């Protein structure tokens, strides 16, 4: 197990969102956490990325307690892209991506040739090399999201947590970002954990799905094991038919609702 939550209790202040949850992330897999709004999936991801301190239980990174490992050492192994991240005004793509090198730098090693190479590689892998000197605010939503992913890549970690990387993007850009994620997984066998809202895209691009409701894991496994009509009713209170995706053969959710 690369990353493990053991009996974690998570919340903000007096409000407990997740209580007594266990989850393991295997090396070299792409895992997506799904669930209705407010089910605690982002909270769980933040705890896995040590952005949120558990009120109880522990998070283990490569078998060691993540909160007992110096945060800088964690940052060399684990990259996190928070939900809707914000950057200072006027920042260029290259500056943003260069920031990903932070954990590898010290006051006497501010910009090594390793840094330069990692940033160059991250920019070209996300197809942003030509846009490097452009201010972030001038990019399209999809390009901006790729720039943020590029920053996490420059960090040089083989474990990536992405919190809703496709939010606010149109379908074409969502596919673009997820293709990139799949490519990152395929190219270097990175372990990736995401939170996504679109069930069909989640099924298409992931090895393992984790379905959550009310702070608990309801089901976990391969997409075709998890995305069933019963589960959709139990987790999302959604009446739907699940058919095979005509392109990939993965489960495709078709809501019933009312129709013409």
């Amino acid at each position, binding site marked *: 197990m690369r990353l493990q939550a053991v009996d974690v209790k998570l919340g903000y202040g007096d409000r407990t969102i997740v209580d007594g949850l266990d989850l393991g992330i295997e090396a070299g897999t792409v895992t997506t956490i799904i669930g209705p709004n407010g089910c605690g999936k982002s909270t769980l991801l933040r705890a896995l990325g040590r*952005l949120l301190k558990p009120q109880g239980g522990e998070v283990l990174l490569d078998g060691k307690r993540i909160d007992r490992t110096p*945060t800088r050492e964690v940052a060399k192994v684990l*990259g996190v892209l928070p*939900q809707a991240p914000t950057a*200072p005004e006027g920042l260029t793509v290259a500056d943003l991506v260069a920031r990903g090198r*932070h954990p590898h730098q010290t006051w*006497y090693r501010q910009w090594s040739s390793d840094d330069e190479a990692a940033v160059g590689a991250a920019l070209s892998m996300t197809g942003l090399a030509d846009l490097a*000197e452009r201010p972030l605010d001038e990019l399209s939503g999809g390009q901006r999201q790729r720039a943020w992913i590029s920053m996490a890549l420059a960090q040089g970690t083989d474990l990536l947590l992405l919190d809703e990387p496709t939010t606010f993007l149109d379908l074409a850009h969502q596919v673009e970002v997820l293709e990139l994620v799949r490519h990152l997984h395929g190219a270097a066998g990175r372990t990736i954990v995401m939170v996504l809202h679109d069930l069909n895209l989640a099924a298409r691009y992931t090895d393992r799905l984790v379905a959550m409701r009310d702070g608990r894991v309801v089901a976990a496994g391969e997409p075709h094991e998890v995305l069933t009509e019963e589960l959709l009713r139990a987790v999302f209170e959604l009446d739907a038919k699940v058919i095979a995706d005509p392109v990939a053969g993965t489960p495709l959710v078709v809501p019933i609702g009312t129709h013409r």
Partner: protein
Amino acid sequence: MTSTLALRMGGVSWQVRPRGVAVTLGGLALLALLMAMNMRIGDIRMSLAEVVRGTFDVTSAHNFVIMELRLPRALTGALVGAALALSGAIIQSIARNPLASPEILGVTTGASVAVVAGVVASGSLYGGAAGLLTTVGTPVLALLGGLAGASTVYALAWRRGLDGYRLVLVGIGVAAVFTNVKYWLLTVGDVNDTARAMVWISGSLNGRGWEHVVPVALALAVLVPLTLLGTRSLDALRFGDDTVTALGVRVDPARALMILAAVLLAAVATASAGPIAFVALAAPQIALRLTRCARPPLLSSAVVGAVLTSGADLLARTVFSPIELPVGVVTAVLGAPYLIHLIWRARK
């Protein structure tokens, strides 16, 4: 990144901004000139050549006057300006707000209240301006008041972490309360005491000696290297807290440490020369525009602050000569339109 160069040697690599280096060096040259021009002024007027000789040649007839009176005053101005500007640069970086300054952290207003309270409470007791209380008491009171003011703001702004916006809002509120307490003290105090207090709270370099230079110089000697080590944290702290944590920065300790350095710098500066207005606000923004950095640069800001304060003091002593204005009056007169300009720009 086009504006930065990387110097590499073995495992060591440094990032250098040619523009920043140019601004810093140019600023230091201008500062030396302004200080020398300041040192010409006094009972005996000297030429620039006499000032230079008097400073570096111990056998010069002017050496005593320069070393005992004029150099300490000029140095106090430069060091206090540098300390205030550095403090402002740190706070503006952390608050991500060009309107933030040590005034907002409660340092200067806290110091003012403490000094006015001290003067009003003890003035008639010790028979006016003379005595140990004013030479030692005022700086100590200012330092304690500044730290107390900052602690108040910090305690009220802290809520499971520190948010830049909340800090600024709480700071403005606390500053308003402190300012009114100060005015109330001025109205209840003895007329002679309050007149003395007024000179201090407008920020003055008059009669500053080595005892005012040493504390600021020591504070800068310790805190400048510390803040420079924190430069990379400051760069990272401009991003959202989650992003910064993900990059391996311990956000709250890093931020608290930098704020503590800013508070100490501003408190020591205020203790030496009173609250000299607007230097902490304007100098980082001027340095930012000169160097075209992404956030207020630390060293360049300090140099610009020293230049601003020395220049303002020169104006204060020459414009209405032989009457000398407190330097804080000049910085306020120059700074107010600048503040309006900043707010105007922020509105757009």
